[in-house]
């Protein structure tokens, strides 16, 4: 540590004003602050500050994502071995998945941080920590077999158009990670849906065991199978199996238990908003119950029990990690309730009533991201009206 501190102390002058590499200072500082929380002290205002900063907060989100990510890695291996009819030890299964997921993570971080660094250089500010989370989210919400170049294009698009065009972390309108997914979904639909992409190897023509099908549960329901199964039609899933999440889906979205661990970390540390998380589930549950009540016989999606809707697809993952993104969510307390509730409700509506998009969560969140300023506006107007009204009353009393 001392050595590192000395290296930094000795090389810093080269990057400071008048130094040889003056232009690289923001990039240099980004690395420096990675190793050391800087020795900056308060200059004005409050003399002491809370120990938390954005880096710490973002790291907490990444820690909260780890259970879902690790489970996802195991799940990738497990489904692959299931599809070729082999059984392997837990460690081998995990290792296989790890090797498949790692390239996605590397590409996502490599491309995203690359774009960020270009902007650090252009704008001359320190790197923003926001992408640390987005970069981890992107590989977790795509199918395992998405081609890496597509992932790279989508990530670059999301960071450039979704974030930097608006001014960087804190200024963006829609969630960059979801934008990357939406880009893939609309630009390369064949690689984002169907029964070939969710399990490694099928798209390259790996020899499958007879009867194996690689569809997600939502895909199965659209194809007319009411009871969720994993891999083989007779391998039916109980509610508990749905919570565990050993079935096809995007890398990190399947295990409700792993996501719940993440949710607890986020809520307990105070990073994510309970209002949003809770109201997404409330909105989704109520809307699903409503659709249950009016569903015509034979419509499998509308007849799916409300609770099952919460467990399948990307609903839980979106509610916990995507809807709660503080930058793109509603910012007022009341607004957060409304925002979350509508996300849940819209996600289920899109799922059940629009057969073209079996996964409504992504679109519902993106849609509400765009509308959240409007929700806030309404909430704030009511505060403003209250204040105006009070001022008028006091004028009258004078």
């Amino acid at each position, binding site marked *: *540590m001392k050595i*590192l*501190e000395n290296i930094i102390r000795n090389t810093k002058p080269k990057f400071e004003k008048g130094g040889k590499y003056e232009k690289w200072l923001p990039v240099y500082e980004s690395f420096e*602050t990675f*190793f*050391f*929380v*800087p*020795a*900056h*002290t*308060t200059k*004005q*205002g*409050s*003399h*002491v*500050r*809370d*120990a*938390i*900063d*954005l*880096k*710490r*907060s973002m*790291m*907490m989100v990444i820690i909260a994502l780890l259970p879902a990510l690790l489970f996802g890695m195991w799940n990738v291996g497990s489904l692959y071995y299931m599809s070729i009819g082999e059984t392997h030890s837990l460690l081998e299964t995990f290792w296989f998945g790890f090797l498949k997921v790692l390239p996605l993570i590397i590409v996502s971080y490599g491309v995203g941080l690359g774009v960020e660094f270009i902007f650090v250089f252009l704008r001359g500010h*320190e790197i*923003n*920590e*926001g992408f640390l989370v987005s970069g981890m989210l992107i590989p977790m919400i795509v199918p395992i077999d998405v081609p890496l170049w597509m992932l790279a294009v989508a990530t670059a698009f999301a960071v450039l158009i979704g974030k930097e065009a608006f*001014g*960087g*972390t*804190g*200024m963006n309108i829609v969630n960059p990670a979801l934008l990357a997914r939406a880009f893939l979904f609309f630009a390369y639909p064949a690689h984002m849906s169907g029964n070939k992409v969710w399990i490694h190897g099928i798209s390259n023509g790996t020899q499958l065991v007879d009867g194996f099908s690689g569809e997600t549960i939502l895909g199965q329901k659209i194809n007319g199978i009411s009871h969720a199964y994993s891999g083989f039609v007779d391998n039916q899933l109980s509610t508990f199996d749905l919570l565990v999440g050993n079935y096809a889906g995007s890398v990190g979205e399947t295990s409700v238990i792993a996501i719940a661990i993440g949710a607890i970390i986020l809520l*307990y*540390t*105070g*990073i994510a*908003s309970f209002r949003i998380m809770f109201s997404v589930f409330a909105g989704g549950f109520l809307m699903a119950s409503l659709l249950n009540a009016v569903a015509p016989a034979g419509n499998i999606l509308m007849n799916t029990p409300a609770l099952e809707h919460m467990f399948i697809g990307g609903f839980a993952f979106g509610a916990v990690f995507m809807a709660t993104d*503080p*930058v793109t*969510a509603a*910012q*007022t*307390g009341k607004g*957060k309730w409304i925002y979350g509730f509508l996300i849940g409700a819209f996600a289920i509506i899109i799922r059940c009533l629009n057969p073209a998009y079996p996964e409504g969560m992504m679109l519902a969140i993106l849609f509400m991201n765009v509308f959240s300023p409007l929700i*806030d506006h309404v909430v*704030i107007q009511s*505060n*403003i009206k*209250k*204040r*105006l009204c*009070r*001022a008028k009353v*006091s*004028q009258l009393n004078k």
Partner: protein
Amino acid sequence: MSKVYKLRKGLTIPLKGEAERIVHQLPLPKTVAIKPTDFIGVVPKLVVKEGDTVLAGDVLFIDKNNQSIQFTSPVSGVVQTILRGERRKLLEVVVAVDSEISYKKFEIPTDITNREAIIDFMLQSGVWPFVKQRPFNCIAKPTDIPKAIHVSAFDTAPLAPDYPFVISEYKELFQKGLQILNALTPGKLHLNILEENRTLHPFDECCGDVQKNYFSGIHPAGNVGVQIHHIDPINKGDVVWTLNPQDVVIIARLFEKGIFDAHKTIAVTGNLQKPHYVKTILGAAVNDCFEEQIVENQRIISGNVLTGTNVGYKGYIGFYDSQITVIPEGNKPEFMGWIAPGFEKFSLSRTFFSWLQIGKKYTIDTNLHGGERAFVFTGVYEKVLPMDIYPMQLLKAIIVNDIDKMEQLGIYEVVEEDFALCEFVCPSKIEIQSIIRQGLTVIQKEFS
């Protein structure tokens, strides 16, 4: 009727070094200074020059924009230095103190219910600057008629002095002061008391037709601005006056004896061997208040850690301050601080393992703990601001200089200190208090 206001939001920063309830009588300080920078918006015009002899109560400087407001010396002695800063800005008027204070005699008005007479007397003697106004937190304009006067009889800021303890010795003076001030407003004089202090000595049998309000809650419940917001919020065009309890005592002494006797009790707190109270005089040199050696690399703050001023070892206690806080400087880098477990770090969030140690007190240094970023997290400020105000939206209105929005979102109801905790908890390390002041300055200019 008195009412109890329960405030649920806020934060107690668990700092080590609360003052023990022992009052040390200090000898007179060697030097005393009045700092024009303590007064918001005052443009000082000097009346004395270096080498002049002054009595306690003699004018040192006046406000150019409002010439009836005078700033007088709290001690007798010789004007030692007139310290100027950049662009000859007047920073300090330092007076070398005589061995014993001789006071200038003022003639006590015969009728202490006559508003004009009281104000005149207060202006002449130099106690007027103790009266501050909301909005803006500047010195009150003698020509204004305030809708109400508020005195907060408790301070909830970190390590703040316990006012009931400090005041109890001067109970009669305090109550007399309140009664005099009550004549200044056609409205009410509100004495805002902490619910737990309800029955304490200084407040029982108090004080004629003073309106007593009771508050329960943690910081910033003791901020007079937060109290006004709950009792009778400020609308555009309203003026409310506020005073500190110790300053009420000084004003009462003036009316009792006809002299500007600015003795007050100061809590010396923070990273010290024995934090305690000292009795000294307004504007005393801080190093006279320490009976021990201050080791290097400490920051000496006049006031509390949230809103105080860094005065340094050679500085002076601020005009409105009743507290000195010493905290270590945090100018050391920390290896991988963003992932370290952090048992020694205090945070409102539970992102450090320090949340395991409930009730632990911390020595918090001045490290910023990160770099400045854009607004990212939401709902954090709201946790520590017990007011019906949208803090982030108000800050953004100020940043884009939108005066209408600022008014609509309640800029008249706030001053910097109410947002100090927001600044403390801000994960983006935004300098919120200076943004609020920037907004207030814009508004003040616009309507003056």
